């Protein structure tokens, strides 16, 4: 484990709705199916529902239709607007969803509307055929027969009741003499197979109201016993009260019906004194058949009468079913399009998130089908990408730290290379210069443009030409490492280099480049020369000085011996011995200078203000130069740091350089320069902060030194003046060298010589 991974980010699913739950969908589907079944059931039972309820049902169905229609338009409008908006916003899969929804709607709406139209026409046609003329006649005839049968029986009972009312003696009825009346009633019942006669007498009740009193009843033997006397009583009273016939049909529990007719019995002045109720029994079979025919007739007539609202109910139910199918299909199309596109859309969003570097992005699988497998695969891919990314990140960090380390090491090496006095030039396999350190730039006078250039071109410069054979030897690779001492003439002086070239070879033995190392051995050579000269000087001083004293003593002895000699002889001896003594003295002085050069002590270094030392030293020349024509100018840098030096030796350096300049200008009374300028000696000090050196520059505007003689100036016993020991500048160089510094000579402008002494700052 590289490090603890953060918890994965699960894609926010704000749009997850209850409708995405399969259980909710199943419940909705069941409700819709139930609604459809209910509509079909209503459709099948429309004719059986009471018409009062059918109106309510019709408007209920119409309300449902309206609701479905509004829902359909709302769903369509909402989603059309949404699709249009998504397309305007260039939302992913918007076009695909629009096409899918359009195809599903086209597949649904067109057939549904066609079915609705054709179905409506079929219903209308069927309704028209329900009420055909033959059916009308058939139903009406059946109704006529059944009602006529009832009415005939009712009429028969009425006739018998009227006849009996006329037959019964009014006074006997009024008297309530049952014994007289009973035979008459029995005679009437004799020919009646199933019936009953009930006789009543009119009486006055306790409140003065008219009432009836039951006198007798005679019934056939096969009359069902479940008839109710009270109904007959009520009918008799009604007839007595109205004074005319009253009829009723009393259904019996046994299934039949009792057709009753009550006829008032009138006395002479036409006043009802009683009533006779004649009943005729119709058995249940007849009653049921007649009632069935009547019900069929009434149903038929009701259908015919209320055809329009019933047809409307059918059409409303049919339209409702169609709208329900349309709404369901539309919603299903939209739902399917979402179900199809949403996971793909989420995958696309996930891919974009992964592409944006959000590797901990995860998708939550909504289903366990192929789309769910795809989401799982996506999540696995994201996890693997994340692991790979983490490994890469770790590798990158390792590499970065190594690069930093390598960079630090490279900087360290470059710093070392830049700081070392040894010049290093690296070449690539093609012979182009890859790196040049500061020492090499300084030694060879190379600029930044040398980088990348072919070494053969860069070193073809005239002053660097001696290096070319060395470079060529590199590519010959024989031998692999070459060391040579090369002398370059740069800036009118010689630079002695110990140059070493080494071929760099790879593991396959092929040359990958070369390194050219240059050591400036000029100071070493100079020191070797000085040491040699010191040895020579010491030998000369030793070998020459010893015989000089005897020579001088001998010459003086000879002079004393010939002091009394003849004048010609004395003159000759005096002249010769005088010359011998003079030359011996000169030789002694020369030998002393050699001895001094050979015995020069080491410097005693102390921090000294160089400017003050210069002022003090120049003060010595005050008397000499006061009456002359020479000008001495000073340009001493302010704030010059103290320099660790031997004041006496550096004073000697200043004196030697100034003396040299005075001599070069022609002495203290030197004439003006050919250009009219006065003979001038300028002493200047500067501080080189970068190289931590203090420079003393002595300039004169004399005739200058030819380039060929410049290097020789610092050699012992070399003098351009034709007199002196020629050790002045050699001593100067030696002192400066023993102070860790250096001295260079160059041309002044327009004429003259510049001596530059560099001393390390304290």
């Amino acid at each position: 484990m590289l490090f603890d991974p953060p918890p994965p980010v699960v894609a926010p699913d704000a749009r997850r709705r209850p409708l995405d739950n399969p259980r909710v969908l199943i419940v909705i589907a069941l409700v819709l199916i139930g609604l459809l079944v209910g509509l079909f059931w209503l459709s099948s039972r429309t004719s059986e529902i009471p018409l009062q309820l059918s109106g309510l049902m019709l408007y209920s169905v119409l309300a449902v239709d309206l609701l479905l229609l509004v829902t359909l338009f709302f769903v369509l409008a909402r989603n059309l607007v949404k699709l249009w908006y998504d397309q305007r916003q260039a939302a992913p899969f918007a076009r695909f969803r629009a096409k899918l929804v359009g195809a599903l709607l086209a597949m649904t709406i067109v057939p549904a509307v066609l079915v609705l139209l054709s179905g409506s026409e079929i219903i209308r046609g069927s309704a028209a055929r329900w009420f055909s003329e033959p059916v009308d006649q058939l139903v009406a005839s059946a109704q006529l027969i059944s009602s006529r049968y009832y009415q005939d029986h009712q009429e028969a009972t009425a006739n018998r009741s009227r006849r009996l009312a006329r037959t019964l003696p009014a006074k006997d009825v009024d008297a309530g003499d049952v014994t007289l009346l009973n035979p008459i009633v029995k005679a009437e019942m004799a020919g009646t197979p199933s019936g009953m006669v009930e006789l009543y007498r009119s009486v006055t009740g306790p409140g003065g109201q008219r009432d009836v009193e039951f006198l007798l009843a005679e019934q056939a033997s096969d009359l069902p016993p479940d008839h109710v006397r009270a109904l007959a009583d009520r009918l008799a009273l009604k007839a007595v009260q109205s004074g005319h016939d009253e009829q009723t049909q009393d259904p019996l529990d046994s299934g039949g019906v009792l057709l009753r007719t009550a006829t008032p019995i009138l006395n002479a002045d036409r006043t009802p004194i009683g009533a006779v109720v004649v009943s005729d029994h119709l058995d249940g079979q007849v009653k049921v058949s007649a009632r069935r025919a009547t019900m069929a007739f009434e149903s038929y007539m009701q259908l015919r009468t209320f055809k329009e609202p019933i047809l409307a109910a059918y059409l409303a139910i049919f339209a409702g079913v169609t709208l329900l199918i349309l709404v369901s299909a539309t919603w299903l199309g939209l739902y399917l399009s979402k179900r199809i596109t949403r996971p793909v859309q989420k995958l696309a969003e996930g891919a974009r998130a992964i592409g944006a570097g959000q590797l901990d992005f995860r998708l939550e699988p909504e289903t366990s089908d192929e789309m769910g497998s795809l989401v799982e695969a996506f999540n696995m891919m994201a996890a693997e990408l994340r692991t790979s990314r983490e490994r890469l990140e770790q590798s990158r960090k390792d590499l970065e730290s190594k690069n930093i380390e390598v960079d630090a090491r490279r900087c360290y090496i470059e710093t070392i290379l830049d700081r070392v006095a040894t010049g290093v030039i690296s070449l690539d396999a093609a012979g182009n210069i890859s790196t040049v350190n500061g020492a090499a730039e300084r030694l060879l006078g190379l600029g930044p443009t040398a980088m990348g250039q072919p070494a053969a071109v860069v070193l073809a410069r005239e002053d660097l030409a001696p290096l070319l054979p060395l470079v060529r030897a590199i590519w010959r690779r024989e031998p692999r490492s070459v060391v040579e001492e090369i002398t370059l003439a740069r800036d009118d002086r010689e630079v002695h280099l110990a140059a070493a070239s080494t071929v760099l070879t790879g593991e396959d033995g092929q040359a990958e480049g070369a390194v050219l190392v240059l050591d400036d051995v000029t100071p070493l050579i100079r020191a070797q020369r000085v040491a040699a000269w010191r040895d020579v000087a010491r030998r000369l001083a030793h070998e020459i000085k010893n015989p000089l004293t005897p020579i001088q003593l001998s010459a003086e002895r000879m002079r004393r011996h010939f002091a009394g000699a003849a004048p010609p002889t004395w003159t000759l001896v005096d002249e010769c011995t005088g010359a011998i003594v003079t030359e011996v003295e000169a030789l002694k002085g020369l030998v002393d200078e050699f001895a001094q050069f050979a015995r020069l002590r080491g410097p005693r270094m102390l921090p000294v203000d160089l400017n003050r030392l210069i002022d003090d030293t120049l003060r010595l020349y005050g008397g000499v130069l006061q009456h002359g024509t020479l000008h001495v100018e000073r340009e001493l840098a302010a704030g010059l740091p103290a320099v660790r030096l031997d004041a006496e030796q550096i004073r000697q350096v200043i004196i030697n350089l100034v003396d040299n300049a005075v001599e070069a200008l022609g002495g203290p009374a030197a004439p003006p320069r050919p250009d009219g300028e006065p003979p001038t000696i300028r002493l200047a000090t500067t501080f080189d902060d970068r190289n931590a050196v203090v420079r003393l520059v002595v300039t004169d505007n004399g005739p200058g030194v030819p380039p060929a003689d410049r290097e020789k100036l610092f050699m012992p016993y070399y003098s351009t003046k034709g007199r002196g020991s020629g050790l002045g500048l050699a001593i100067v160089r030696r002192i400066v060298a023993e102070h860790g510094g250096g001295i260079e000579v160059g041309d002044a402008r327009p004429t003259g010589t510049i001596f530059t002494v560099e001393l390390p700052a304290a």
Partner: protein
Amino acid sequence: MTRRTLLALVFVTATGGLAMMATDINVTPVVTEGGRVVAAFSAPTSFFEDAHDAIQSGVLMTFSYAVELRRPSTIWFDRTLAETTAAATVKFDSLTGIYQVSKLRDGRVVWSERTDKETDVRGWMMSFDQIALEPSEPLEANADYYVRVRLRMSPRRTFSIWPFGRDDGSGRKDFTFIR
């Protein structure tokens, strides 16, 4: 209910009443001693004739009369002070030729009769009296009121998409209550 001499004289503004009321149903309002309004009304027989076929088909036919006592307003809707519903149902038995007629008041059956005479049925279905309207507040003297009667028959033979506010007939009688 005892009908006493009227404390108030009902002044029917003939012109205004004719102008305002519908001519379908003839309404006669009477203000009684207790401040109640008792209305009688009769609908033209044409309504019964329209429903004749439906009645003969054996369907239970209902004539429902909504009777309202209202006070007119010129700036707002008329205010209803009292309302009641009187209804009559008829069921014809095609087998026996008998009509079963019932009268209802606010949903309660108050009278029922059987007959085979269609003329009696027509009278019972189309004429009502003693329809008492108990106003929610005492009638204001010299104020205008009216009694409106709206008839709705059910079931209907015709079909309309809009189920509300369609009366089969109506009548109105304006009066000024003078104490």
